[in-house]
Protein backbone atom coordinates (compact mmCIF):
# COMPACT_ATOMS: atom_id res chain seq x y z
CA UNK A 1 0.00 0.00 0.00
CA UNK A 2 1.89 3.04 -1.24
CA UNK A 3 -0.55 5.83 -0.82
CA UNK A 4 -2.56 5.60 2.37
CA UNK A 5 -4.42 8.81 1.66
CA UNK A 6 -6.21 6.99 -1.14
CA UNK A 7 -7.88 4.84 1.48
CA UNK A 8 -8.01 7.16 4.45
CA UNK A 9 -9.40 10.03 2.39
CA UNK A 10 -11.38 12.99 3.68
CA UNK A 11 -14.77 11.46 2.93
CA UNK A 12 -14.00 8.16 4.65
CA UNK A 13 -12.45 9.85 7.68
CA UNK A 14 -15.38 12.21 8.08
CA UNK A 15 -17.98 9.44 7.85
CA UNK A 16 -16.03 7.11 10.14
CA UNK A 17 -15.60 9.52 12.99
CA UNK A 18 -18.72 11.72 12.80
CA UNK A 19 -21.50 9.95 10.98
CA UNK A 20 -24.99 11.46 10.92
CA UNK A 21 -26.26 7.98 10.01
CA UNK A 22 -25.20 6.60 13.38
CA UNK A 23 -28.51 6.69 15.23
CA UNK A 24 -31.64 4.61 15.77
CA UNK A 25 -34.73 4.61 13.59
CA UNK A 26 -38.10 5.13 15.16
CA UNK A 27 -39.75 2.03 13.80
CA UNK A 28 -37.40 -0.11 11.78
CA UNK A 29 -38.78 -2.95 9.67
CA UNK A 30 -35.50 -4.81 9.90
CA UNK A 31 -32.62 -4.77 12.33
CA UNK A 32 -29.68 -7.03 11.63
CA UNK A 33 -26.29 -7.37 13.24
CA UNK A 34 -23.18 -7.96 11.19
CA UNK A 35 -19.83 -8.79 12.75
CA UNK A 36 -16.29 -9.82 11.95
CA UNK A 37 -15.38 -12.01 14.93
CA UNK A 38 -11.66 -11.86 14.21
CA UNK A 39 -11.42 -8.11 14.49
CA UNK A 40 -14.39 -7.32 16.72
CA UNK A 41 -16.16 -5.03 14.22
CA UNK A 42 -19.85 -5.03 15.05
CA UNK A 43 -22.60 -3.06 13.36
CA UNK A 44 -26.36 -3.20 13.62
CA UNK A 45 -28.17 -2.01 10.53
CA UNK A 46 -31.74 -0.73 10.77
CA UNK A 47 -33.91 -0.48 7.67
CA UNK A 48 -37.30 1.05 7.06
CA UNK A 49 -39.08 0.16 3.83
CA UNK A 50 -41.87 1.80 1.95
CA UNK A 51 -43.13 -0.92 -0.36
CA UNK A 52 -40.18 -1.74 -2.55
CA UNK A 53 -38.32 1.39 -1.62
CA UNK A 54 -35.64 1.79 1.06
CA UNK A 55 -37.14 4.68 2.93
CA UNK A 56 -34.62 5.08 5.71
CA UNK A 57 -31.57 3.43 7.20
CA UNK A 58 -29.38 3.90 10.25
CA UNK A 59 -26.63 2.04 12.07
CA UNK A 60 -25.06 1.57 15.47
CA UNK A 61 -22.03 -0.35 16.67
CA UNK A 62 -18.30 -0.03 16.67
CA UNK A 63 -15.29 -0.94 14.60
CA UNK A 64 -12.48 0.44 12.52
CA UNK A 65 -12.69 3.56 10.38
CA UNK A 66 -13.17 1.56 7.22
CA UNK A 67 -16.07 -0.54 8.53
CA UNK A 68 -17.79 2.47 10.08
CA UNK A 69 -17.35 4.73 7.06
CA UNK A 70 -18.37 2.01 4.66
CA UNK A 71 -21.61 1.51 6.61
CA UNK A 72 -22.39 5.20 6.71
CA UNK A 73 -21.63 5.85 3.05
CA UNK A 74 -23.62 2.75 2.07
CA UNK A 75 -26.62 4.22 3.84
CA UNK A 76 -26.25 7.48 1.90
CA UNK A 77 -25.99 5.55 -1.33
CA UNK A 78 -28.88 3.14 -0.85
CA UNK A 79 -31.39 5.42 0.85
CA UNK A 80 -34.27 6.22 -1.49
CA UNK A 81 -33.40 3.46 -3.95
CA UNK A 82 -35.78 0.67 -4.77
CA UNK A 83 -34.70 -2.82 -3.83
CA UNK A 84 -33.80 -3.94 -7.31
CA UNK A 85 -31.59 -0.93 -7.80
CA UNK A 86 -30.05 -1.39 -4.35
CA UNK A 87 -29.15 -4.99 -5.14
CA UNK A 88 -27.40 -3.87 -8.31
CA UNK A 89 -25.38 -1.32 -6.35
CA UNK A 90 -24.47 -3.88 -3.67
CA UNK A 91 -23.30 -6.30 -6.33
CA UNK A 92 -21.21 -3.61 -7.97
CA UNK A 93 -19.64 -2.54 -4.68
CA UNK A 94 -18.65 -6.09 -3.77
CA UNK A 95 -17.35 -6.57 -7.33
CA UNK A 96 -15.28 -3.41 -7.05
CA UNK A 97 -13.71 -4.40 -3.73
CA UNK A 98 -12.92 -7.86 -5.11
CA UNK A 99 -11.45 -6.20 -8.23
CA UNK A 100 -13.89 -8.03 -10.49
CA UNK A 101 -15.54 -4.82 -11.70
CA UNK A 102 -13.26 -2.08 -12.99
CA UNK A 103 -15.43 -0.40 -15.60
CA UNK A 104 -15.68 3.30 -14.72
CA UNK A 105 -19.20 3.66 -16.16
CA UNK A 106 -20.44 0.77 -14.09
CA UNK A 107 -18.77 2.09 -10.94
CA UNK A 108 -20.52 5.44 -11.30
CA UNK A 109 -23.70 4.04 -9.81
CA UNK A 110 -21.86 3.62 -6.50
CA UNK A 111 -21.88 7.40 -5.99
CA UNK A 112 -19.75 8.22 -2.90
CA UNK A 113 -19.10 4.55 -2.17
CA UNK A 114 -16.55 4.61 -4.97
CA UNK A 115 -14.25 6.15 -2.33
CA UNK A 116 -13.50 2.61 -1.16
CA UNK A 117 -12.03 1.36 -4.43
CA UNK A 118 -8.47 1.39 -3.08
CA UNK A 119 -9.34 -0.82 -0.14
CA UNK A 120 -8.81 -3.62 -2.64
CA UNK A 121 -5.09 -2.83 -2.27
CA UNK A 122 -5.28 -3.75 1.41
CA UNK A 123 -6.38 -7.39 1.47
CA UNK A 124 -6.46 -7.47 5.28
CA UNK A 125 -9.11 -4.74 5.28
CA UNK A 126 -11.45 -6.00 2.57
CA UNK A 127 -13.73 -7.66 5.10
CA UNK A 128 -14.02 -4.37 7.01
CA UNK A 129 -15.26 -2.59 3.89
CA UNK A 130 -17.72 -5.37 3.04
CA UNK A 131 -19.29 -5.89 6.47
CA UNK A 132 -22.27 -3.54 6.05
CA UNK A 133 -22.84 -4.56 2.44
CA UNK A 134 -23.09 -8.22 3.37
CA UNK A 135 -25.42 -7.29 6.21
CA UNK A 136 -27.83 -5.40 3.94
CA UNK A 137 -27.64 -8.32 1.50
CA UNK A 138 -28.80 -10.59 4.34
CA UNK A 139 -31.68 -8.25 5.14
CA UNK A 140 -32.85 -8.09 1.53
CA UNK A 141 -32.56 -11.87 1.17
CA UNK A 142 -34.56 -12.29 4.33
CA UNK A 143 -37.26 -10.03 2.96
CA UNK A 144 -37.37 -11.95 -0.29
CA UNK A 145 -37.76 -15.27 1.56
CA UNK A 146 -40.52 -13.82 3.68
CA UNK A 147 -42.22 -12.77 0.46
CA UNK A 148 -42.18 -16.29 -0.97
CA UNK A 149 -43.24 -17.70 2.37
CA UNK A 150 -46.34 -15.53 2.41
CA UNK A 151 -47.19 -16.52 -1.18
CA UNK A 152 -46.88 -20.18 -0.16
CA UNK A 153 -49.18 -19.40 2.68
CA UNK A 154 -51.85 -17.94 0.41
CA UNK A 155 -51.81 -20.99 -1.82
CA UNK A 156 -52.56 -23.37 1.01
Amino acid sequence: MDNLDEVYNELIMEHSMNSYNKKHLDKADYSEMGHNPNCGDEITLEVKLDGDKIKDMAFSGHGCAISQASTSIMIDTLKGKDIKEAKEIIKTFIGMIKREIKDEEELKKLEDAIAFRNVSNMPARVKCALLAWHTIEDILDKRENEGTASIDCCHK
Partner: protein
Amino acid sequence: MNIKDDFPILKNRNIAYLDSGATSQKPQAVIDAISEFYKKCNANPHRGAYALSQEATEVYENTRTKIAEFINAKHREEIIFSKNATESLNLIAYSYGLENIEKDDEIVISIMEHHSNLVPWQKVAKTKQAKLNYMYINENFELSDEEIESKITDKTKIVGITHVSNVLGTINNIEKIIKYAHKKGALVIVDASQSIPHMKIDVQALDADFLVFSGHKMLAPLGIGVLYGKKELLDNMTPFLMGGDMIEYVYEQDTTFASLPNKFEAGTQNVEGVIGLGAAIDYIESLGYDKIEQIEREIVHYAIEELRKLNFLDLYLTKNNENHSAVISFNIKGVHPHDVASILDAEGVCVRSGNHCAQPLMRFLGIDSTCRASFYIYNTKEDVDRLVEALNKAYNMFKKYIKI
Protein backbone atom coordinates in the same frame (compact mmCIF):
# COMPACT_ATOMS: atom_id res chain seq x y z
CA MET B 1 27.69 -9.44 16.75
CA ASN B 2 24.66 -8.52 14.70
CA ILE B 3 21.85 -10.94 15.48
CA LYS B 4 19.67 -9.56 12.68
CA ASP B 5 22.19 -10.97 10.18
CA ASP B 6 21.29 -14.49 11.29
CA PHE B 7 17.71 -13.99 10.09
CA PRO B 8 17.47 -14.00 6.29
CA ILE B 9 13.94 -12.59 6.17
CA LEU B 10 15.08 -9.48 8.03
CA LYS B 11 17.72 -8.93 5.38
CA ASN B 12 15.32 -9.66 2.53
CA ARG B 13 12.61 -7.30 3.69
CA ASN B 14 12.90 -3.79 4.96
CA ILE B 15 10.55 -4.14 7.90
CA ALA B 16 10.48 -3.51 11.62
CA TYR B 17 9.12 -6.90 12.63
CA LEU B 18 7.33 -6.37 15.94
CA ASP B 19 5.06 -9.40 15.97
CA SER B 20 7.25 -12.10 17.47
CA GLY B 21 4.52 -12.75 20.03
CA ALA B 22 2.54 -14.19 17.11
CA THR B 23 5.49 -16.03 15.61
CA SER B 24 9.22 -15.45 15.65
CA GLN B 25 11.37 -15.25 12.57
CA LYS B 26 13.74 -18.16 11.92
CA PRO B 27 17.54 -18.04 11.93
CA GLN B 28 19.54 -19.49 9.06
CA ALA B 29 20.69 -22.33 11.34
CA VAL B 30 17.10 -23.54 11.78
CA ILE B 31 16.31 -23.27 8.08
CA ASP B 32 19.53 -25.19 7.28
CA ALA B 33 18.85 -27.93 9.82
CA ILE B 34 15.49 -28.69 8.22
CA SER B 35 16.91 -28.71 4.74
CA GLU B 36 19.85 -30.91 5.85
CA PHE B 37 17.42 -33.39 7.37
CA TYR B 38 15.62 -33.81 4.05
CA LYS B 39 18.89 -33.98 2.15
CA LYS B 40 20.55 -36.53 4.40
CA CYS B 41 18.33 -38.24 6.97
CA ASN B 42 14.72 -38.28 5.80
CA ALA B 43 12.82 -41.47 6.60
CA ASN B 44 9.93 -42.30 8.89
CA PRO B 45 11.21 -42.68 12.47
CA HIS B 46 10.28 -45.79 14.47
CA ARG B 47 9.11 -47.56 11.27
CA GLY B 48 11.99 -49.04 9.32
CA ALA B 49 14.66 -51.60 10.12
CA TYR B 50 17.03 -50.05 7.60
CA ALA B 51 19.85 -47.72 8.56
CA LEU B 52 18.26 -44.53 7.20
CA SER B 53 15.10 -44.96 9.25
CA GLN B 54 17.26 -45.75 12.27
CA GLU B 55 19.10 -42.50 11.72
CA ALA B 56 15.85 -40.55 11.41
CA THR B 57 14.71 -42.17 14.65
CA GLU B 58 17.93 -41.15 16.28
CA VAL B 59 17.75 -37.45 15.36
CA TYR B 60 14.08 -37.38 16.34
CA GLU B 61 14.64 -39.02 19.72
CA ASN B 62 17.86 -37.10 20.40
CA THR B 63 15.87 -33.91 20.08
CA ARG B 64 13.46 -35.19 22.71
CA THR B 65 16.41 -35.64 25.04
CA LYS B 66 17.66 -32.17 24.14
CA ILE B 67 14.30 -30.62 25.03
CA ALA B 68 14.13 -32.58 28.29
CA GLU B 69 17.51 -31.15 29.25
CA PHE B 70 16.53 -27.69 28.00
CA ILE B 71 13.60 -27.45 30.44
CA ASN B 72 15.21 -29.74 33.01
CA ALA B 73 12.61 -32.53 32.86
CA LYS B 74 13.49 -35.52 35.00
CA HIS B 75 12.73 -38.09 32.27
CA ARG B 76 13.01 -37.73 28.51
CA GLU B 77 9.68 -39.50 28.00
CA GLU B 78 7.97 -36.64 29.80
CA ILE B 79 8.39 -34.67 26.57
CA ILE B 80 5.53 -35.23 24.13
CA PHE B 81 5.53 -33.66 20.67
CA SER B 82 2.35 -31.97 19.48
CA LYS B 83 1.27 -29.56 16.78
CA ASN B 84 1.41 -26.51 19.04
CA ALA B 85 0.57 -25.31 22.55
CA THR B 86 -3.13 -25.42 21.68
CA GLU B 87 -2.99 -29.12 20.88
CA SER B 88 -0.95 -29.77 24.03
CA LEU B 89 -3.61 -28.01 26.12
CA ASN B 90 -6.40 -29.92 24.41
CA LEU B 91 -4.58 -33.16 25.10
CA ILE B 92 -4.49 -32.29 28.81
CA ALA B 93 -8.14 -31.19 28.84
CA TYR B 94 -9.34 -34.37 27.13
CA SER B 95 -7.00 -36.97 28.55
CA TYR B 96 -6.65 -35.58 32.06
CA GLY B 97 -9.49 -33.09 32.56
CA LEU B 98 -12.42 -35.11 31.29
CA GLU B 99 -11.14 -38.21 33.09
CA ASN B 100 -10.45 -36.65 36.48
CA ILE B 101 -12.73 -33.67 36.99
CA GLU B 102 -15.98 -34.42 38.76
CA LYS B 103 -19.22 -32.61 39.45
CA ASP B 104 -18.76 -29.46 41.57
CA ASP B 105 -14.97 -29.53 41.27
CA GLU B 106 -13.39 -26.21 40.46
CA ILE B 107 -11.10 -25.34 37.58
CA VAL B 108 -9.31 -22.03 38.05
CA ILE B 109 -7.73 -20.01 35.26
CA SER B 110 -6.75 -16.36 34.90
CA ILE B 111 -8.67 -13.72 32.95
CA MET B 112 -5.58 -13.19 30.80
CA GLU B 113 -5.55 -16.71 29.34
CA HIS B 114 -5.32 -17.18 25.60
CA HIS B 115 -8.45 -18.88 24.22
CA SER B 116 -6.40 -22.08 23.95
CA ASN B 117 -6.11 -22.32 27.74
CA LEU B 118 -9.71 -21.24 28.26
CA VAL B 119 -12.10 -22.78 25.75
CA PRO B 120 -10.98 -26.39 26.47
CA TRP B 121 -11.69 -25.80 30.17
CA GLN B 122 -15.16 -24.50 29.39
CA LYS B 123 -15.76 -27.78 27.61
CA VAL B 124 -14.48 -29.83 30.56
CA ALA B 125 -16.43 -27.75 33.08
CA LYS B 126 -19.67 -28.01 31.09
CA THR B 127 -19.32 -31.72 30.40
CA LYS B 128 -18.51 -32.60 34.00
CA GLN B 129 -20.74 -29.98 35.66
CA ALA B 130 -17.72 -28.45 37.28
CA LYS B 131 -17.11 -24.76 37.91
CA LEU B 132 -14.77 -22.59 35.87
CA ASN B 133 -13.51 -19.73 38.05
CA TYR B 134 -11.32 -16.79 37.09
CA MET B 135 -8.46 -14.99 38.77
CA TYR B 136 -8.77 -11.32 37.79
CA ILE B 137 -6.04 -8.73 37.38
CA ASN B 138 -5.67 -5.60 39.47
CA GLU B 139 -5.30 -2.01 38.22
CA ASN B 140 -1.66 -2.77 37.54
CA PHE B 141 -2.53 -5.62 35.13
CA GLU B 142 -1.17 -8.20 37.60
CA LEU B 143 -2.63 -11.05 39.66
CA SER B 144 -2.36 -10.17 43.32
CA ASP B 145 -1.49 -12.75 45.99
CA GLU B 146 -4.91 -12.15 47.56
CA GLU B 147 -6.64 -12.89 44.27
CA ILE B 148 -4.67 -16.12 43.85
CA GLU B 149 -5.42 -17.23 47.41
CA SER B 150 -9.10 -16.36 47.25
CA LYS B 151 -9.76 -18.18 43.95
CA ILE B 152 -7.77 -21.38 44.46
CA THR B 153 -9.71 -23.31 47.08
CA ASP B 154 -9.90 -26.80 48.55
CA LYS B 155 -12.33 -27.65 45.74
CA THR B 156 -9.90 -26.62 43.01
CA LYS B 157 -8.56 -29.58 41.05
CA ILE B 158 -6.89 -27.83 38.10
CA VAL B 159 -5.24 -24.44 37.78
CA GLY B 160 -4.40 -23.23 34.27
CA ILE B 161 -2.11 -20.24 34.09
CA THR B 162 -0.14 -18.48 31.42
CA HIS B 163 3.43 -17.72 32.45
CA VAL B 164 3.44 -14.49 30.44
CA SER B 165 0.32 -12.77 29.11
CA ASN B 166 0.30 -12.51 25.31
CA VAL B 167 -1.60 -9.22 25.59
CA LEU B 168 -0.22 -7.47 28.65
CA GLY B 169 3.26 -8.95 28.86
CA THR B 170 2.69 -9.49 32.57
CA ILE B 171 4.94 -12.19 34.01
CA ASN B 172 2.79 -14.15 36.42
CA ASN B 173 4.18 -15.39 39.69
CA ILE B 174 3.79 -19.04 38.73
CA GLU B 175 6.14 -20.20 41.51
CA LYS B 176 3.67 -18.81 44.03
CA ILE B 177 0.62 -20.12 42.13
CA ILE B 178 2.07 -23.63 41.85
CA LYS B 179 3.08 -23.76 45.50
CA TYR B 180 -0.30 -22.53 46.67
CA ALA B 181 -2.26 -24.80 44.31
CA HIS B 182 -0.30 -27.83 45.46
CA LYS B 183 -1.05 -26.92 49.06
CA LYS B 184 -4.73 -27.01 48.10
CA GLY B 185 -4.34 -30.31 46.27
CA ALA B 186 -4.69 -28.92 42.73
CA LEU B 187 -2.58 -29.58 39.65
CA VAL B 188 -1.09 -26.71 37.69
CA ILE B 189 -0.85 -26.39 33.92
CA VAL B 190 1.55 -23.69 32.78
CA ASP B 191 1.26 -22.15 29.33
CA ALA B 192 4.87 -21.16 28.62
CA SER B 193 4.29 -20.12 24.98
CA GLN B 194 5.12 -16.46 25.64
CA SER B 195 7.81 -17.07 28.24
CA ILE B 196 10.10 -19.80 26.95
CA PRO B 197 11.43 -17.69 24.05
CA HIS B 198 12.61 -15.15 26.62
CA MET B 199 13.46 -16.85 29.90
CA LYS B 200 14.89 -20.05 31.31
CA ILE B 201 12.29 -22.65 32.22
CA ASP B 202 13.06 -25.33 34.81
CA VAL B 203 10.05 -27.60 35.23
CA GLN B 204 11.51 -29.36 38.26
CA ALA B 205 12.38 -26.15 40.09
CA LEU B 206 8.87 -24.84 39.28
CA ASP B 207 7.32 -28.19 40.18
CA ALA B 208 4.88 -27.66 37.28
CA ASP B 209 2.57 -30.63 36.68
CA PHE B 210 2.12 -29.82 33.01
CA LEU B 211 3.82 -27.20 30.88
CA VAL B 212 3.18 -26.46 27.22
CA PHE B 213 4.70 -24.32 24.52
CA SER B 214 4.83 -23.83 20.75
CA GLY B 215 8.09 -24.05 18.85
CA HIS B 216 7.31 -21.32 16.36
CA LYS B 217 7.46 -18.50 18.90
CA MET B 218 10.99 -19.57 19.88
CA LEU B 219 12.72 -19.60 16.46
CA ALA B 220 11.52 -23.08 15.47
CA PRO B 221 9.28 -23.83 12.48
CA LEU B 222 5.50 -23.58 12.51
CA GLY B 223 3.54 -26.68 13.47
CA ILE B 224 5.60 -28.14 16.27
CA GLY B 225 4.70 -27.93 19.94
CA VAL B 226 5.62 -29.57 23.20
CA LEU B 227 3.73 -30.99 26.12
CA TYR B 228 5.66 -31.63 29.29
CA GLY B 229 3.91 -33.65 31.97
CA LYS B 230 5.10 -35.38 35.10
CA LYS B 231 5.66 -39.03 34.29
CA GLU B 232 3.28 -40.36 36.93
CA LEU B 233 0.49 -38.19 35.51
CA LEU B 234 1.13 -39.02 31.87
CA ASP B 235 1.44 -42.74 32.69
CA ASN B 236 -2.07 -42.77 34.09
CA MET B 237 -3.70 -40.80 31.31
CA THR B 238 -5.61 -42.28 28.39
CA PRO B 239 -4.35 -41.52 24.87
CA PHE B 240 -5.69 -38.46 23.09
CA LEU B 241 -5.33 -39.49 19.43
CA MET B 242 -5.38 -43.14 18.35
CA GLY B 243 -3.54 -44.70 15.46
CA GLY B 244 -0.15 -45.86 14.33
CA ASP B 245 2.89 -46.00 16.60
CA MET B 246 0.92 -45.33 19.81
CA ILE B 247 -0.14 -48.95 20.28
CA GLU B 248 1.32 -52.10 21.76
CA TYR B 249 -1.02 -54.88 20.59
CA VAL B 250 -4.07 -54.36 18.42
CA TYR B 251 -6.77 -57.04 18.27
CA GLU B 252 -10.04 -56.91 16.39
CA GLN B 253 -11.92 -55.48 19.35
CA ASP B 254 -9.23 -54.29 21.74
CA THR B 255 -5.92 -52.49 21.89
CA THR B 256 -3.20 -52.07 24.45
CA PHE B 257 -1.22 -48.88 24.22
CA ALA B 258 2.46 -48.12 23.93
CA SER B 259 4.27 -46.65 26.88
CA LEU B 260 5.45 -43.05 27.08
CA PRO B 261 6.12 -41.06 25.02
CA ASN B 262 4.71 -42.97 22.02
CA LYS B 263 1.32 -43.33 23.69
CA PHE B 264 0.67 -39.68 22.91
CA GLU B 265 2.27 -39.50 19.48
CA ALA B 266 -0.14 -41.16 17.07
CA GLY B 267 0.69 -41.23 13.38
CA THR B 268 3.74 -39.98 11.55
CA GLN B 269 5.04 -36.95 13.38
CA ASN B 270 6.25 -33.54 12.25
CA VAL B 271 9.85 -34.70 12.18
CA GLU B 272 11.20 -31.65 10.36
CA GLY B 273 9.50 -29.53 13.02
CA VAL B 274 11.22 -31.51 15.75
CA ILE B 275 14.60 -31.15 13.99
CA GLY B 276 13.98 -27.43 13.57
CA LEU B 277 13.04 -27.10 17.23
CA GLY B 278 16.28 -28.82 18.18
CA ALA B 279 18.24 -26.34 16.05
CA ALA B 280 16.29 -23.44 17.60
CA ILE B 281 17.25 -24.64 21.07
CA ASP B 282 20.89 -24.85 19.97
CA TYR B 283 20.67 -21.26 18.75
CA ILE B 284 19.06 -20.06 21.99
CA GLU B 285 21.64 -21.90 24.08
CA SER B 286 24.57 -20.61 22.05
CA LEU B 287 23.33 -17.09 22.71
CA GLY B 288 22.35 -17.90 26.28
CA TYR B 289 19.30 -16.70 28.22
CA ASP B 290 21.41 -14.13 30.10
CA LYS B 291 22.30 -12.46 26.84
CA ILE B 292 18.73 -12.78 25.54
CA GLU B 293 17.35 -11.13 28.65
CA GLN B 294 19.94 -8.38 28.45
CA ILE B 295 19.12 -7.59 24.80
CA GLU B 296 15.39 -7.64 25.44
CA ARG B 297 15.52 -5.61 28.62
CA GLU B 298 17.35 -2.86 26.83
CA ILE B 299 15.06 -2.80 23.81
CA VAL B 300 11.78 -3.18 25.71
CA HIS B 301 12.70 -0.52 28.25
CA TYR B 302 13.61 1.81 25.44
CA ALA B 303 10.29 1.08 23.74
CA ILE B 304 8.30 1.68 26.93
CA GLU B 305 10.14 4.96 27.52
CA GLU B 306 9.53 6.18 23.99
CA LEU B 307 5.88 5.08 23.90
CA ARG B 308 5.18 6.74 27.24
CA LYS B 309 6.23 10.04 25.66
CA LEU B 310 3.33 9.79 23.19
CA ASN B 311 0.46 11.27 25.15
CA PHE B 312 -2.08 10.18 22.52
CA LEU B 313 -1.48 6.54 23.48
CA ASP B 314 -3.14 4.30 26.04
CA LEU B 315 -0.68 1.65 27.25
CA TYR B 316 -1.80 -1.58 28.85
CA LEU B 317 1.14 -2.72 30.95
CA THR B 318 2.30 -3.00 34.53
CA LYS B 319 4.38 -0.25 36.09
CA ASN B 320 6.67 -2.94 37.53
CA ASN B 321 9.23 -3.49 34.82
CA GLU B 322 10.54 -6.63 36.50
CA ASN B 323 7.10 -8.24 36.05
CA HIS B 324 6.90 -7.37 32.38
CA SER B 325 8.18 -9.34 29.40
CA ALA B 326 8.49 -8.42 25.72
CA VAL B 327 4.90 -7.57 24.74
CA ILE B 328 3.43 -4.05 24.72
CA SER B 329 -0.25 -3.45 23.99
CA PHE B 330 -1.40 0.06 23.16
CA ASN B 331 -4.08 2.10 21.45
CA ILE B 332 -4.18 5.54 19.92
CA LYS B 333 -7.01 7.10 21.92
CA GLY B 334 -10.11 7.26 19.73
CA VAL B 335 -8.63 5.37 16.78
CA HIS B 336 -9.35 1.74 16.03
CA PRO B 337 -6.27 -0.54 16.24
CA HIS B 338 -6.88 -2.00 12.78
CA ASP B 339 -6.57 1.42 11.23
CA VAL B 340 -3.40 2.04 13.22
CA ALA B 341 -1.96 -1.32 12.15
CA SER B 342 -2.72 -0.60 8.48
CA ILE B 343 -0.98 2.77 8.66
CA LEU B 344 1.98 1.20 10.49
CA ASP B 345 2.11 -1.49 7.83
CA ALA B 346 2.41 1.15 5.13
CA GLU B 347 5.51 2.34 7.02
CA GLY B 348 6.97 -1.17 7.14
CA VAL B 349 6.15 -1.68 10.81
CA CYS B 350 4.53 -5.06 11.56
CA VAL B 351 2.34 -5.11 14.67
CA ARG B 352 -0.62 -7.23 15.55
CA SER B 353 -4.05 -5.69 16.05
CA GLY B 354 -7.15 -7.35 17.36
CA ASN B 355 -8.27 -9.20 20.46
CA HIS B 356 -5.19 -11.48 20.48
CA CYS B 357 -7.31 -14.59 21.15
CA ALA B 358 -8.17 -13.14 24.55
CA GLN B 359 -11.73 -11.86 24.27
CA PRO B 360 -12.61 -12.27 27.96
CA LEU B 361 -9.58 -10.13 28.87
CA MET B 362 -10.61 -7.45 26.36
CA ARG B 363 -14.12 -7.42 27.81
CA PHE B 364 -12.66 -7.18 31.32
CA LEU B 365 -10.52 -4.21 30.25
CA GLY B 366 -13.56 -2.63 28.57
CA ILE B 367 -11.96 -2.47 25.13
CA ASP B 368 -12.51 -4.22 21.78
CA SER B 369 -8.96 -4.71 20.79
CA THR B 370 -5.44 -3.35 20.97
CA CYS B 371 -2.35 -2.95 18.86
CA ARG B 372 0.46 -5.10 20.11
CA ALA B 373 4.17 -4.70 19.53
CA SER B 374 6.17 -7.72 20.65
CA PHE B 375 9.93 -7.89 20.66
CA TYR B 376 12.62 -10.50 20.32
CA ILE B 377 16.39 -10.80 20.14
CA TYR B 378 16.69 -9.44 16.60
CA ASN B 379 14.87 -6.20 17.32
CA THR B 380 16.82 -2.97 17.59
CA LYS B 381 16.28 0.58 18.78
CA GLU B 382 15.84 1.52 15.12
CA ASP B 383 12.78 -0.74 15.03
CA VAL B 384 11.37 1.13 18.01
CA ASP B 385 12.13 4.47 16.34
CA ARG B 386 10.29 3.34 13.22
CA LEU B 387 7.33 2.33 15.37
CA VAL B 388 7.24 5.70 17.11
CA GLU B 389 7.55 7.61 13.85
CA ALA B 390 4.75 5.58 12.26
CA LEU B 391 2.54 6.09 15.31
CA ASN B 392 3.04 9.83 15.05
CA LYS B 393 2.07 9.64 11.42
CA ALA B 394 -1.08 7.64 12.23
CA TYR B 395 -2.05 10.07 14.96
CA ASN B 396 -1.55 13.06 12.67
CA MET B 397 -3.75 11.48 10.01
CA PHE B 398 -6.59 10.98 12.47
CA LYS B 399 -6.04 13.92 14.81
CA LYS B 400 -8.61 16.31 13.40
CA TYR B 401 -11.31 13.64 13.25
CA ILE B 402 -10.81 12.04 16.66
CA LYS B 403 -13.76 12.30 19.01
CA ILE B 404 -13.07 10.95 22.49
